[in-house]
């Protein structure tokens, strides 16, 4: 059932993401091309849109993630979702995995868009310069550090998703008013700020390496707590309106 849920979650989301990605890549390419062919008036119009679009990918992804854990679980589509013989755990997991894929894709698309923009504007020499810089950067970093960085990013993504799931679950099970979106958003910032305040005190006396291990540990612990509470709320307290 988990794989079926993942499949349909991808079907539910891929159209809007792909269209947005294509727009960003197209703008990143066309903006500098206009400069290169001396159409500076058009280029000066397009270039701001390139940066807006790249920034927009992140906003778009965040809004979609929030909706995916909010109205697409607890709103009207929830009537169908909670009628299917799926475990709550599988519903959550499918959403988390698919949204992580889209978040990573959005980052990759943004990096590609920036790269295209720079290379098309600056030519082959700039492309080689970027490659050399990246090569030197990778050579300077230990493989262990790269693995740790990737692990840490993965845990951060999961912890971020888990917090969104938690605030949406609270806003849609314990709160019975009409402003669920607002309540979820406020809760998100309050909890995120509270956690950050407490962890800063804990990390204050640690070395950089100790801190990165501690961050991963705290990330895992928080993810488990957020998922546990969300699971309990949806499995025991669900009240679709």
């Amino acid at each position, binding site marked *: *059932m988990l794989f*079926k849920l993942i*499949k*349909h979650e991808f*079907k*539910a*989301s891929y*159209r*809007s993401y792909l269209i947005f990605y294509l727009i960003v890549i197209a703008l990143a390419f066309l903006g500098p091309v206009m400069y290169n062919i001396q159409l500076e008036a058009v280029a000066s119009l397009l270039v701001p849109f390139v940066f807006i679009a790249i920034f927009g990918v992140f906003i778009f992804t965040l809004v979609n993630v929030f909706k995916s854990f909010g109205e*697409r679980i607890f709103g*009207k*589509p*929830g*009537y*169908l979702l*909670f*009628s*299917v*013989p*799926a*475990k709550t755990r599988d519903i959550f997991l499918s959403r988390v995995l698919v949204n992580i894929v889209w978040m990573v894709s959005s980052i990759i698309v943004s990096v590609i868009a920036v790269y295209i923009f720079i290379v098309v504007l600056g030519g082959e020499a700039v492309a080689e310069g970027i490659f050399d810089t990246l090569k030197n950067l990778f050579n300077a970093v230990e493989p262990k550090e790269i693995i740790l960085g990737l692990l840490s990013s993965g845990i951060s993504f999961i912890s971020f998703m888990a917090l969104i799931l938690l605030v949406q679950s609270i806003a849609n099970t314990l709160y*019975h008013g009409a402003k669920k979106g607002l309540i979820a958003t406020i809760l998100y910032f309050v909890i995120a700020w509270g956690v950050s305040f407490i962890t800063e005190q804990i990390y204050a006396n640690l070395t950089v390496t100790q801190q990165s291990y501690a961050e991963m540990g705290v990330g895992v612990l928080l993810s488990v707590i957020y998922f546990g509470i969300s699971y309990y709320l949806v*499995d*025991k*307290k*669900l*009240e*679709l309106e």
Partner: protein
Amino acid sequence: MANSVIQIKNLTKSYGKTVQALKNVNLDLKAGTTVGLLGPNGSGKTTLIKVLTGLLKQFEGDVIVNGEKIDNKSKALVSYLPDQLYFDNWMKINDLKAYFKDMFADFNEERFNQLLASFKIEDRGLIKKMSKGNKEKLQLALVLSRDAKVYIFDEPIGGVDPALRDIILETIKNYRNEEALVILSTHQIYDVENLFDEVIFLKSGEVFLHKPTKEVTDEYGKSLLETFKEVFRNVV
């Protein structure tokens, strides 16, 4: 004697501290019967249905579907038509068909195509662009295309025009699994009394009566509609 498919014991459901939507409901519903769940607005019909379908999980009492407490196994046996449209904005008819085929082992694709044809629903892209009547018929076609043990229809004829109401009632009568339990909730008794083997009158969250339809009409010496009006005169 038919098997019990749904057993409800001492079911009470409150919203907050003041509103009691269901009060000590006890019911035993059997396979092969069509049950009318009748009552005015606010009598607790939708709340009872949401409990049966697992959409409401906070309640007191025991609810057993096919011998098991409500969980994902019981959901596989229940085909549910809610009182609102649940389509996501991205969906097309083929997406929905694929979703039902994947999620429900008892989905009958041939019957679904047959129902789409008889409802004259054409696939013209996104469902959100279809008329409200066609969306309602599409949702009904999905529900009836399952060979379920229990069919639950929540206000399927509420707010629809008379022609569509007839189509809906005819379809429910003709396309359902004969051995299944059918629960149909409505506050519009007109034209539906012949459909029901049994009726449940819900009054302010309590079961006022649960009897075979004939027994009710004989006892009151009136049609079901007139009986309903008499029972709920002071409530509506």
